[in-house]
């Protein structure tokens, strides 16, 4: 397999958009292609990550549609659907196309236009990934699975409501430094937990998870341009090498997991990604985790190997994972602050890491970031993809 690098990236501002899904995809794709500055080189293949176009936007075969809009014919193209892990899945497929030699230059675009429907419909749409007979029929939603998981973590490891709030506060603070982030609002511990008014400001969504423990519903698109590393060295000043990718699955029904507090798929995916890269968690400078719910940032940071089991909340408390800490997690604002257009998220995490490793992250730049890790969490942890990226110094 050849070495593969990211040579360009771009994204739209996440949030509430008035333009169509295709227009979002074009905007971020053009941004990434401009950033890559390919010159005479052609895009051989396009991979699109998306979960809901057929249901929310009544559109199918959107990868072919994107090729058309960008006049990239006759490039190869397909859409990839893997629930909330669609982004990293499309990226993984793009990587394989280049690594195998089947393509030299690949465009990966993840996008979602969720706000075409109201919030209740959006919740139901996301709930369609749960087990139809053993979960969905009971009114199980993704927040409810996260709520039950959170209760267990609180009982077993001493995670508190304050710890969850710390994740939300940190990520919304980081998002203020990210012009592409959906949420541009500072929140305080007083306002969301301690004041008597907090019961209205921050009501339960799926107890013990509250409003500010859940990521927003967002529209948006993010794109990457992948290229064979040898080729990339000809034109790209700072290629970001894809050092490792790992993926693992777990049971569909969450109650069937052997240990219901263990994110096994995260652990296995991370293990594979690290093994492939030759690196270990202590070598990583900056991390993007999938905090669809604040508890997941804590749990994934442990399962991926950055902190011992049951101690992720301690590292959070100590400030280790803040923007200026020893291991910044979610400098972009994470899903909580940056937003979560489902198909775009996995790609957006890698866009942030690319900017960080290229020194282009402006006000939220992590100093001397040379290697990064991302975790894209599909379903409620039954399909997870982990990635390790490393800066190639020219």
């Amino acid at each position, binding site marked *: 397999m050849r070495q593969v690098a990211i040579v360009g990236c771009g994204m739209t501002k996440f949030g509430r958009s008035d333009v169509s899904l295709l227009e979002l995809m074009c905007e971020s794709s053009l941004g990434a292609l401009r950033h890559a500055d390919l010159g005479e080189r052609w895009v051989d293949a396009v991979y699109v990550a998306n979960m809901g176009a057929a249901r929310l936007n009544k559109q199918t075969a959107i990868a072919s549609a994107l090729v058309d809009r960008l006049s990239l014919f006759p490039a190869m193209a397909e859409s990839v659907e893997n629930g909330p892990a669609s982004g990293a899945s499309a990226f993984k497929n793009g990587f394989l196309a280049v690594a195998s030699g089947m393509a030299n230059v690949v465009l990966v675009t993840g996008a979602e236009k969720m706000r075409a429907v109201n919030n209740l419909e959006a919740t139901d749409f996301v709930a369609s990934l749960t087990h139809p007979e053993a979960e969905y029929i009971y009114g199980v939603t993704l927040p409810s699975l996260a709520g039950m998981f959170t209760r267990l973590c609180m009982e077993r490891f001493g995670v508190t409501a304050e710890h969850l709030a710390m994740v939300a506060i940190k990520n919304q603070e980081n998002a203020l430094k990210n012009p592409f982030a959906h949420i541009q609002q500072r929140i305080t511990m007083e306002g969301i937990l301690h004041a008597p008014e907090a019961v209205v400001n921050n009501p339960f969504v799926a107890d013990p998870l509250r409003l500010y423990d859940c990521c927003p519903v967002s529209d948006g698109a993010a794109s990457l341009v992948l290229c064979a590393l040898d080729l990339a060295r000809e034109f790209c000043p700072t290629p970001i090498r894809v050092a490792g990718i790992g993926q693992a699955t777990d049971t569909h029904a969450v*109650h069937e997991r052997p240990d219901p507090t263990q994110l096994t798929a995260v652990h296995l995916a991370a293990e594979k990604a690290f093994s492939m890269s030759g690196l270990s968690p202590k070598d990583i400078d900056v991390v993007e985790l999938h905090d669809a719910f604040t508890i997941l940032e804590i749990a994934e940071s442990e399962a991926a190997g950055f902190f011992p089991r049951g101690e992720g909340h301690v590292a959070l408390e100590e400030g280790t994972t803040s923007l200026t800490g020893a291991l910044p997690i979610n400098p972009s604002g994470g899903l909580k602050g940056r937003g979560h257009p489902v198909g775009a998220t996995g790609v957006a995490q890698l866009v942030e890491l690319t900017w960080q490793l290229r020194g282009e992250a402006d006000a939220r730049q992590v100093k001397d970031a040379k290697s990064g890790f991302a975790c894209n969490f599909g379903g409620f942890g039954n399909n997870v993809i982990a990635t390790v990226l490393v800066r190639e110094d020219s």
Partner: protein
Amino acid sequence: MMDTSVYGSRCNACGKVSYPAHCVCPECGGGAFEPVEISGEGTVLTYTDVYALPLDYAQRYLRLGMVELDLGVRATGQLLDENPEVGKRVRVAIGVVRQSDEKRIYGLQFVPV
């Protein structure tokens, strides 16, 4: 009368009981199963009150629980208990758990023992 019971499966080869059912036994790879009715008593593993409900539900919140059943599997269902507690003993009942369009959908409910 419509059968509203909920079933898992027992592998003919190794005896492992699974819920929900799989086509291939996760323990031994076997492909032949007997249905096992999900019933009896169990212990609450975890629960939550869900507030942001899909359009099929008109109530303010819904109490869901995951229960460790004595018969050897776990199950997810609606927890009909005013005072839920992790570790509390409950038993399986069957009731209407969702109303989709005109259809009434039956499923697992857990009630205090």
